[in-house]
């Protein structure tokens, strides 16, 4: 599970509790603190958290980490794990044909800036092309490269770099 996924789940949990407090007008203004670690265990409950079907929140929860695919150093090929993730993305996108998505291409910090911008674009396009091959209309998919500008994992080590060499599909609410 990626850090990004956890973060988004936490946001969902907070949104859900905010919604609850809005409904129950007699609830105390000072909510008790969230129990530690509860946010990440919530992810296993998927849609039961209350994400609106067809929303980006629903996409993230449904895909369970498969909203991103990962690449080897300097590569942009789609491997079998990527295919499974992209097939799951395509399935969701076909369930909600009115939804568009942007695929964000990223690189690790161990590349020169210009090249990483081009490489991120190449990775985003590789993911896009596979989604199109799975029946998603190309007109629904945009790409953007962030090169090495938006790392997810902050370390300067192989495991961090592996997490950062990614293409993330983000649906547009």
């Amino acid at each position: 599970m990626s850090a990004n996924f956890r973060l988004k789940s936490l946001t969902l949990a907070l949104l859900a509790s905010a919604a609850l407090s809005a409904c129950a007008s007699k609830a105390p203004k000072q909510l008790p603190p969230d129990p530690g670690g509860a946010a990440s265990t919530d992810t296993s409950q998927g849609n039961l958290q209350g994400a609106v079907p067809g929303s980006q929140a629903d996409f993230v929860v449904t895909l369970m980490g498969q909203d991103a695919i990962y690449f080897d150093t300097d590569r942009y090929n789609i491997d079998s794990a990527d295919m499974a993730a992209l097939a799951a993305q395509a399935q969701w996108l076909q369930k909600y044909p009115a939804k568009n998505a942007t695929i964000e291409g990223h690189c690790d910090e161990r590349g020169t800036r210009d090249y990483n911008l081009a490489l991120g674009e190449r990775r985003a396009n590789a993911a896009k092309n596979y989604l199109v091959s799975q029946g998603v209309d190309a007109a629904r998919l945009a790409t953007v490269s962030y090169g090495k500008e938006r790392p997810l994992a902050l370390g300067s080590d192989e495991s961090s770099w592996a997490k950062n060499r990614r293409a993330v599909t983000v649906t547009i609410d």
Partner: protein
Amino acid sequence: MMFRNLTVFALVLSAPALAQQAAPPATPTEEGGLSGSVSDENDWQDLGIAIPSFATNADVPTQTSAGSTAALGRSVAQIITADLKNNGLFKPVGPDALPQPGYGQIQAPDFATWKTRSAEMLVQGYVRAAEGGQLTVGCYLYDVALSQQLAKAGWTVAPADWRRAAHKCADMVYSRLSGESPFFDSKVAYIAETGPKDRRMKRLAIMDSDGANHRYLTTGQATALTPRYSPDYGSIMYLSYLNGNPRIYVYDLATATQRLITQSRNPTFAPRWSPDGKWVLYSMATGGNTDIYRISAAGGGTPVKLTDSPGIDIGGSFSPDGTKIVFESDRSGSQQVYVMNADGTGQRRISFFGGRAATPEWSPRGDQIAFTHITGNFRIAVIDPSGGNLRTLTDSWQDEAPTWSPNGRIVQFFRTARGSGRTGIWQVDLTGRNERRLATPVDGSDPAWGPVRP
């Protein structure tokens, strides 16, 4: 003696274990990764140069930040001293440690006194108030041993440009003593960085070659990257994520307005000017494939696609005569350096020395190409235009994106710290010995050094 030190140093650095060590960021003196002999081991680098306060005929207020003409005379001498010292070229002694000559002595130096101070060269001058608030700065270079004037020049400048007169004087001294072209009176565009590693704010910024007159040009709301000053300093091309997508804009400095370099909706990267400012290169991705294009700098006209490989072709730097372009391509499977004619014909790879080779920049002198050499760590290196005579100039964890001084003797680049991701702008001369960090208000990356000003 200097040559002997150099040889010993090169031997030490050839040990692989040492070469792998990350250089400590704050001790620039001993980390130049020199790997070969160089041609500019001249005695003039050891010259003792005295630079006393510039005199004035009448101490009157000025409209400058430095104060009256007398205060300005001291500041001018300090700027000249810093220029000559900070680049490792000379060992000057500045005004704080020297007697102050009178106005009448500027053209008739007291050579006997300077000889007793072991000064071999003497830089003197004056500051005078001129018409309309302007300032006249005179600059004289003397050979103390010969009791002889070597060079003189004078400039009348607007108050806001007073530092330029000091840089021009430093340039005169440097050129006369070294035989090299001047470079101090020039400016640098770069990216100012603040904030945590995953949410860096990146702003377009400019400064003089010595870090003075620093100014931010963008607010940081949109990430700005990879600026390049136009040769006339009138505008800057850079990449911005304005409106969400990375595209190249031309920022006009006089009007503080900007326009897209091309109306295409595709992402565009790596803007570059031709030396005469008439053409620009940009790299554009279409369906994931990036190629290099050339278009008129004035805007309009049809872009000419210069590369057509299925790999990433990106960047590009013109030879000084504008006939050739050095660029980067991964068509062989990894980033390597290629040269082509300015019309895109005759593309051939020139980097065949192992590792990856990226971000090539042609020296304004034409004799060298600086690039990022990726062999595990990222180092700044130079080759000749045929790809031979590889020399590595730096040795750190990640040094990237060289840009040349106007005279092709110094390379600026940015260094990224492992872990924190913090960046700083550094420069190193072609010997690899004189490496230093430039003082910037916040972290800095993507430096682009412009030409010497007329």
